[in-house]
């Protein structure tokens, strides 16, 4: 039986909020399981309507506030956000420079510089993305590094 739509949506919002706060996947799953159990206990013991129970639960942001003070894992720090953002935008800038700007300035320079620039962008995005892996930009940075690595490998195999 599929989970009730409203409960599923609420649990997804709680998971998003906790993830943003730096909670580990196991902790998120644990808290979700507790909430799911809570709702079903309220239905079976108090005969309450599922919509009313979900509506009475604390907003997802409340879990973030509590999580930040109680979690085993520390709350996502400003430094992690900074690493994630720097990894994503820094990698993107170097990548755009290597593929769009350098070839237009000097095609010969492109021959010599594109590979080192792309490799630099990959290492930069991957390392900073890993340092900020609990943040949105950190994950985007890791995805960017993976994408650039794939593209680089593709160009090399094509002899580009």
């Amino acid at each position: 039986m599929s989970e009730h739509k409203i409960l599923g949506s609420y649990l997804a919002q709680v998971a998003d909020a906790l993830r943003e706060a730096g909670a580990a996947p196991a902790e998120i799953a644990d808290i979700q399981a507790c909430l799911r159990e809570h709702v079903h206990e309220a239905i079976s013991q108090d005969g309450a309507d599922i919509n009313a129970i979900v509506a009475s639960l604390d907003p997802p942001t409340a879990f973030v506030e509590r999580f930040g003070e109680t979690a085993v894992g520390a709350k996502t720090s400003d430094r992690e956000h900074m690493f994630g953002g720097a990894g994503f935008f820094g990698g993107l800038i170097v990548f755009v420079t290597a593929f769009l700007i350098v070839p237009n300035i000097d095609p010969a320079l492109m021959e010599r510089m594109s590979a080192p620039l792309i490799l630099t962008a990959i290492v930069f995005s991957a390392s900073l993305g890993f340092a900020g892996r609990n943040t949105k930009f950190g994950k985007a940075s890791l995805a960017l590094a993976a994408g650039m690595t794939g593209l680089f490998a593709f160009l090399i195999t094509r002899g580009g």
Partner: protein
Amino acid sequence: MDDAWPQQMRKGFAELCILIVLKRSENYGYAILAELSAFDALSFSESTLYPVLSKMAGEGLLAVREGPSLRGRARRYYSLTAKGRARLKNLAVYWKALRAGLDDLLAGKG
């Protein structure tokens, strides 16, 4: 945010309250909430209880097992581990000292 301070104080005692409830017997989350809500000053919301339970289980203070409820759905039962019992002992000692200190301070002693 004048109304926030009782909640902040309660949160500080959440771990101690859970340990006390579980000292009597193993229990599940919803029942722990219900038991604590019998005391006005100790009623927690689910957004406080479940992250704390998760944290305490992660720290090895609580053991978790799954068992069926009367309706057959799985329930998570929490019980104290040896580490949890030791934590309860320490927190109880600290709580008594804290309460005595605050009482003295309120009475203008010291």
